[in-house]
């Protein structure tokens, strides 16, 4: 499973990032609460390049360099193929950040751990970026 970003229809509006940020870290999806009260962090980057834009999100690689490199075993792949970080185990060494060729994994704002897209596996039926994309540019695809 991964999120496919179709730059043909990505508007670069960044709503994916806003809803992503508000969905995680205990903000429960309230955008105003997240941004007015805290410092929410999106799990995906927005790339704008030569009039095109797309969301730089985790590919959930089969042979994921981040999992191989993780020194604590915090990075794991569940049986749905979702690569996720066990926040309890992560020590914030950022080795995963260093080896992700897509630059998807990012340090948390306080640099205490790494954060990455986990396809909202604990939150919603569909990842919030997909469900909030105003133009259907994001799709969750099941292909392996």
């Amino acid at each position, binding site marked *: *499973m991964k999120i496919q970003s179709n730059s043909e229809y990505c508007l670069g509006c960044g709503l994916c990032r806003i809803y992503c940020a508000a969905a995680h870290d205990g903000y429960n999806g309230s955008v105003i609460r997240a941004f007015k009260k805290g410092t929410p962090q999106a799990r995906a980057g927005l790339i704008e390049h030569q009039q095109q834009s797309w969301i730089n999100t985790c590919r959930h690689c089969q042979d994921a360099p981040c999992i191989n490199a993780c020194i604590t075993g915090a990075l794991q792949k569940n049986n749905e193929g979702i690569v996720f970080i066990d926040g309890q185990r992560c020590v914030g060494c950022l080795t995963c950040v*260093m*080896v992700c060729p897509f630059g998807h994994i990012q340090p948390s704002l306080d640099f205490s751990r790494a954060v990455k897209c986990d396809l909202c596996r604990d939150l919603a039926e569909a990842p919030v970026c997909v469900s909030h994309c105003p133009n259907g540019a994001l799709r969750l695809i099941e292909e392996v």
Partner: protein
Amino acid sequence: MKYLIIGSCIAAAGAVEGIRSIDPEGEITVIDGEQRGCYSRPLISYYLTGRRTSSQLDYRPADFFAQQRVRIIPGRAASIDVICKQVLLQDGTGLEYDRLLLATGASPVIPPIPGITQSWVNTFYTWQDAEEISAQTAAKGTAVVLGSGLIGLKAAEALHHMGMKVVMVEKQSHILPRLLSPRSAAAVGGHLQRHGLKVVTGHEVVAVGNHEVAVDDGSSIAADLLIIAVGTRPNQDLAREAGLQTDRGIIVDCHLRTSDPHIWAAGDVIESRHIVRGTDEVMALLPLAHREGFIAGLNMAGSRTRYPGGIFLNAVHILGMHIITAGDPETTGSILRWQEGERCLELTMQGQNLHRYIAINIPGISGPLTALIERQVKIPESEWFKFLRNPAIANLPAAYWAEVRRWQDDGSLRCG
């Protein structure tokens, strides 16, 4: 098929995963010298400060080997009989193998300094080291750390956190000499000093007395604890004695096979191909160890998977500062720099090839840069100048995005 693995750490875990991805049936035996299962050495500094418990040191879940149906034999290998394909343990037990993996790792170098074998002198490499140090730091005093490599830095940070006064002594002219340029090292050194760590560079310890360390400039430092962290050396005695080809580490081919056709080697004990340099190096790095172990495992189980080599890459955070560097530490190309306060990015170019980067407090950008070094993607300097105006992933040169598309198209990075 009988697989035998000497060593139980990262490369061994990788090898078990590699073997099992092809051969679910074969009999795998792991000789666990430390008798601690598969744990992550970089975590011992966290263990020392108490941020991690003992069980949290595990690299893989505690039942990993059991899950993979691996037999664990505690003990240390004494010799390999390559003719009879048998490994003799120190207790005399013989273990036969069809395929053998040497994942014996490395050991800290103990420099030949008088008095260095005293009990208050420790290395900082294994979980036992951490436990021993922990026992000695009850009385808060001064700790001297010999060497300012990654291990030395992490030891210093841990001891600092535990309330000790820390002095680092580095023989080279700047700290992290294998990783940093002098200029970036200065930034790191300044950061350490601001946190109260004392850093002595360009000097070496000449003698160790009773809770006293003598430095070559004639001064001496009163110390309650001395940590030796001047480097590691592959544990290749077994291999050498068995007649396998060795140099600075065990020599392996591109399939990670040693000079004996039934023996593979992986991890910190081998010399492997440095992609940028094109030479074989001992690169004792956790991510490489896992990858090598995995590929060796595949090949032991019958595959012919090529190990593409690796590069030096390190991510270390020390007292809130994030230092990530990858590539060839000895490169001599032109240096492009970006700096903003405590954040800096330094790129070293050889022609259009990126040979190294050093990213301090700007970790987010590092993954793509690592990939560009590993794949030696050609990008003109002018593109990098543009990028360095605002070094963010979105501003990476077009060639990078083209490369991303290519990975996805040709499957060279398998994404699922």
